[in-house]
């Protein structure tokens, strides 16, 4: 009797050729066809106690939607995902699935796990391009109003959850476009902006109101939101304060924070200059400081803007690089060079104040530090000069104090992040929740979404039964 056997390998996702894509802003993976998606979906063993759902921070019913997909009912498949996740087209693309759902897939033990991310992405893309537009069911209106501050991943999750539970939701965004890091940070070639717009539009079709150009803390204060009749407020304002290295010469022309570089390139679409009005510096010999996802995004953007040489300079070794392995791999394929165990000590400029180079030191790895990673220590006498005309500083970001300064009763930790109850996301101020990077410091999209889910559950309880 032949048992149902899973096929060994996963169906590969087609990708643009590295030699071509390194100079364009189109998406790198081009997506499954329906036949590919069904072939991959058929690999799922439909576990009774699925580990994948446990591994998903927002607990999407993964075997459920995959079963609907194999049955060919794509409308039902996407509606099943939407019950738990308002941003499937985003999550399918940017989640680190290898340490989440796919990491817990039973097939991961023997070979390759089911490509859950690719399948989620396929369902969302199929619905967007060919779907019926049918919305998931929504609870009856409760008459309660919730203000969601910020429109990044955690905020959009809160908005999606609460609107389905029948509350009236208004999302307030300081920029002129909603999406937070999804629109200003993550580049077009990883996450097309039309897709983010579509996910936000899905929330609007569900009944959420999105107000842009609202700088909460300036245009309106937190207390005024309550005066205006909001019953609860969620703060998902992110960690948008760029860190610099604080080394001499940092204000020379040609040194930008990754936030500035990516905001110009992504949100303002400066890669189309002069078709659009915002310029972005076009370096020939570009250096990116740092080795997280933001550094990879910056380096790959610089390559696409026509740089001759793009280098990542990182003070630790390859093992400690915090970026997703897929991003590092993509960057290497596109010709980005890695200069490891190297730290800049000062910038060098010409008489017009333009960057021409950078003085660096070679490092060696010493004893492990508090984070458990081996601490880089400078090698004496190893100074050398690196020629570069554009430096993008991607060494992390801190808590933006704009909102918290105007609301002194919000308790902050010593780094300026909001202190919240770890289970519910409640802040020290009644009726105010927070989640995502403004609580944890810069982390991932899906962690922010998980925080949003917990806070939304807690807000729902509060609106029904009190604080």
């Amino acid at each position: 009797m032949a048992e149902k056997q899973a096929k060994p390998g996963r169906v590969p996702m087609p990708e643009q050729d590295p030699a071509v894509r390194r100079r364009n802003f189109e998406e790198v993976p081009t997506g499954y066809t329906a036949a590919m998606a069904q072939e991959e979906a058929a690999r799922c063993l439909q576990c009774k106690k699925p580990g994948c759902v446990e591994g998903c921070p927002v607990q999407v019913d993964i075997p459920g939607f995959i079963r609907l997909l194999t049955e060919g009912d794509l409308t039902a498949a996407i509606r099943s995902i939407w019950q738990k996740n308002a941003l499937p087209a985003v999550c399918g693309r940017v989640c680190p699935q290898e340490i989440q759902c796919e990491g817990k897939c039973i097939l991961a033990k023997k070979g390759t796990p089911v490509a859950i991310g690719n399948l989620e992405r396929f369902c969302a893309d199929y619905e967007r391009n060919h779907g019926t537009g049918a919305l998931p069911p929504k609870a009856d209106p409760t008459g309660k109003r919730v203000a969601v501050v910020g429109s990044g991943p955690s905020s959009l999750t809160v908005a999606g959850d609460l609107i389905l539970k029948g509350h009236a939701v208004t999302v307030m965004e300081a920029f002129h476009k909603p999406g937070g890091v999804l629109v200003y940070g993550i580049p077009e070639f990883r996450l097309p902006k039309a897709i983010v717009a579509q996910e936000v539009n899905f929330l609007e079709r569900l009944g959420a109101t999105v107000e842009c150009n609202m700088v909460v803390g300036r245009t309106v204060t937190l207390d005024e939101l309550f005066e205006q009749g909001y019953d609860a407020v969620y703060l998902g304002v992110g960690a948008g304060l760029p860190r610099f290295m604080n080394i001499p010469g940092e204000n020379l022309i040609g040194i930008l924070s990754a936030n500035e570089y990516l905001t110009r390139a992504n949100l303002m679409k400066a890669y189309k200059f002069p078709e659009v009005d915002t310029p972005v510096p076009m370096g020939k010999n570009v250096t990116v400081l740092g080795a997280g996802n933001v550094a990879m995004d910056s380096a790959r953007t610089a390559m696409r803007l026509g740089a001759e040489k793009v280098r990542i300079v990182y003070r630790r070794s390859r093992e400690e690089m915090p970026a997703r392995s897929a991003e590092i791999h993509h960057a290497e394929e596109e010709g980005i060079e890695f200069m490891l165990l190297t730290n800049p000590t000062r910038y060098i400029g010409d008489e017009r104040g333009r960057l021409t180079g950078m003085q660096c030191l070679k490092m060696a790895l010493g004893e492990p530090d508090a984070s458990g990673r081996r601490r880089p220590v400078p090698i004496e006498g190893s100074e050398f000069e690196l020629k570069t005309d554009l430096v993008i500083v991607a060494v992390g970001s801190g808590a933006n104090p704009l909102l918290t300064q105007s609301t002194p009763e919000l308790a902050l930790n010593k780094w300026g992040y909001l202190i919240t109850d770890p289970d519910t996301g409640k802040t020290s101020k009644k009726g105010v929740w927070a989640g995502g990077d403004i609580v944890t410091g810069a982390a991932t999209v899906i962690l922010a979404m998980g925080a949003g889910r917990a806070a939304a559950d807690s807000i729902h309880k509060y609106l029904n039964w009190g604080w």
Partner: protein
Amino acid sequence: MFKIVKRTEMAQGTVILNEIEAPLIARKAKPGQFVILKSHEEGERIPLTMAETDPVKGTITIIYMVVGKSTALFRDLKEGDGYQDVIGPLGRPTHVEKVGTVLCVGGGTGVAVLHPITRAMKEAGNNVICVIGARNKDLLILEDKMKTASDDLRVCTDDGSYGHHGFVTDIVKKVLAGEKVAQVVAIGPVPMMKAVSAVTKEFGVPTMVSLNPIMIDGTGMCGGCRVSVGGETKFACVDGPEFDGHKVNFDELMMRLRAYCDEEKQCYEGYCRLSDG
């Protein structure tokens, strides 16, 4: 859309005033604060300090000189047209208190920014002396309003076509030599603020300047607007735009303002060619 309810040309059409419907901003704005404006989908985000706000009408007023493509596009907007995005109020408000005699110094379109601050200084009970300057008589703006806002107004032009022949610093020196001034506020082109700060430093009079570096978001997210003040890096959009003029590194600011001069030129020339034919 943020509708333009009133449009006036000043200084022979080189300086434009727009009164814009923005009730949320008008309700909250204080002297010294700025807004970020974007006129259309492909446009860039430009910071401008508000010249006036009317919380009752729900409008804010900006006054700007046409210097490049974006301001040229702003100029082309008529009454009834609108800006796609207006964000604010941003930055810290001017610190206003009764200190005695305040000397307000304005140059070029900086006078538009100086006006609400001057008025607030007078309303706080200060004796307000004003010096305003322009390259020539035709470029001088808001003389009447500044007269009303201050106790004593002096005017100068670089070419001598009106008022004192020379720079505002000449008069600043004269005033400081003759009177006890508690506070100076200087707003205008960077070289002018630098020169005024140098003079007031000699006299030991605290001096506040309003800086105008390149900005993108205006909310502290990118550090594009960073300036050196007293050897420390500050973000003008959230820590300013007003700073102690004796501590600002003006040379670095001037240098950083030139970062995109080639791109700005390319953009403006492209626009001028299009509008010519």
